[in-house]
């Protein structure tokens, strides 16, 4: 358990709202507008805004605590929150003074929800390349970007967009650009009808517009460094927290049910099979949780985020948290059976959690990270475990 924090009241409010609407937003594959409104009004959206920019200066540990708590009731809401925080952290770490002043205090006040545009047709989720160019038009930089999956796209107030840098010679010279909604012409080019994570409302979009030079985050072609230092670590840590929270939430609901009078008749707590299964699930969650917290401490103290042991650990976290969280809820389905494990209207919500967590291994593909880790292991023949 985490110690009581200054964010508890805000989290409790958002959790309450998210839980009340989760079934409806899942069913309709609709964005959780009520939960977002609660994240604005409680200023939870500003969690990672540094104190010097008008925010509470939340830490990586705070991000994990809050995301995990949200994930317990609605994994989509947790993912939306964590990905927004990833954008905020990138601006806080790499944004120029003018951009920070324009954006961060507004985020802290709950006025700006930031979307992320990194996917692109043809490359899938590959983070470090972009085919869409940023073109100079006088003092402005023109963006024309298609993206097959933009989480919360129609609801974001502004976006961080990866594009090919102006005059770039290759698709690996990538910029990260801030664009406010009113600087863009936004076209939703398709629908969103997935198996799970339905409330993330991650539609395909085309974004066209122009932004001034100061809205480029870091230097031209500098996205790779931002990805190494901020984007990838926060993604893997934030996602892992959302997944672990989702699995822990379902597990908790099942345990409470198993201890109730009705549940005791159904589950036979003296059954060794039940006990073994319950234990196995807990082992998975404890292992993933330990890995998550350890990774946070390594990231907080790492002097060079590009060092192989750190990169390997971050990828391992993503891969392992995805696998353990999904395996845990898969075993929960088996444990509770058809009625509570397969039916949408079960109050234990195992079925929805199962669908949501099926996305975890695909959300930046585990296999792609395994390939990266294979190459990284050869960069670390001394096996310096982080």
């Amino acid at each position, binding site marked *: 358990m985490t110690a009581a924090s200054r964010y508890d009241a805000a989290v409790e409010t958002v959790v309450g709202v998210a839980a009340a609407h989760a079934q409806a937003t899942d069913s309709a594959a609709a964005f959780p507008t009520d939960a977002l409104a609660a994240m604005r009004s409680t200023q939870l959206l500003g969690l990672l805004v540094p104190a010097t920019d008008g925010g509470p200066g939340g830490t990586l540990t705070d991000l994990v605590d809050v995301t995990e708590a949200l994930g317990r009731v609605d994994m989509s809401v947790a993912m939306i929150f964590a990905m927004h925080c990833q954008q905020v952290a990138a601006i806080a770490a790499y944004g120029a003074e003018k951009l920070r002043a324009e954006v961060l205090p507004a985020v802290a006040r709950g006025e700006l929800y930031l979307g992320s545009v990194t996917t692109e047709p043809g490359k899938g989720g590959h983070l470090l390349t972009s085919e869409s160019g940023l073109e100079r038009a006088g003092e402005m930089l023109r963006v024309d970007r298609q993206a097959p999956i933009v989480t919360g796209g129609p609801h974001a107030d502004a976006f961080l967009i990866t594009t090919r840098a102006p005059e770039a010679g290759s698709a690996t010279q990538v910029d990260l650009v801030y664009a406010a909604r009113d600087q863009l012409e936004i076209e939703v080019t398709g629908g969103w009808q997935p198996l799970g994570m339905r409330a993330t409302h991650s539609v395909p979009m085309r974004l066209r517009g122009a932004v001034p030079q100061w809205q480029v985050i870091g230097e031209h072609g500098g996205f790779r460094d931002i990805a190494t230092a901020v984007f990838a670590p926060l993604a893997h840590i934030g996602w892992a927290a959302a997944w672990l929270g989702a699995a822990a939430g379902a597990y908790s609901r099942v345990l409470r049910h198993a201890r109730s009078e009705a549940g005791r008749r159904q589950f036979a707590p003296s059954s060794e099979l039940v006990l073994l299964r319950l234990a196995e699930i807990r082992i998975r969650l404890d292992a993933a949780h330990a890995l998550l917290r350890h990774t946070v401490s390594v990231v907080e103290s790492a002097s060079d985020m590009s060092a*192989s042991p750190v990169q390997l650990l971050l990828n391992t976290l993503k891969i392992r948290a995805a696998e353990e969280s999904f395996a845990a809820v898969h075993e929960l389905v088996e444990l509770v059976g058809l009625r509570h494990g397969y039916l949408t209207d079960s109050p234990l919500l195992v079925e929805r959690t199962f669908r949501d967590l099926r996305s975890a291994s695909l959300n930046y593909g585990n296999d792609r990270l395994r390939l990266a880790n294979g190459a990284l292991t050869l960069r670390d023949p001394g096996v310096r475990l982080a």
Partner: protein
Amino acid sequence: MNNEFTEMLRPFLKFAGNGEISEESRLRDLGLDSMREIELLFAIEDTFGVAVPDDKLVDSTFATAGGLWDVVEELRAPVGGGTR
């Protein structure tokens, strides 16, 4: 940088074409990715008879052609008169 080094680099840089590879050339921009980086490492070790120590295997080592050459030069120079 000597010619042997730049010509050894070229096949790992898919966007370099026949253009000049200078000390300032940014290897990532020219197409070096994490997979190719390992193959480049092997090529460096074979070509120059050096062993790149683990703590040099960070992104900054592979940032520019000149920076990578400096690392190779440093490893080739006998330290304290000893040889390996």
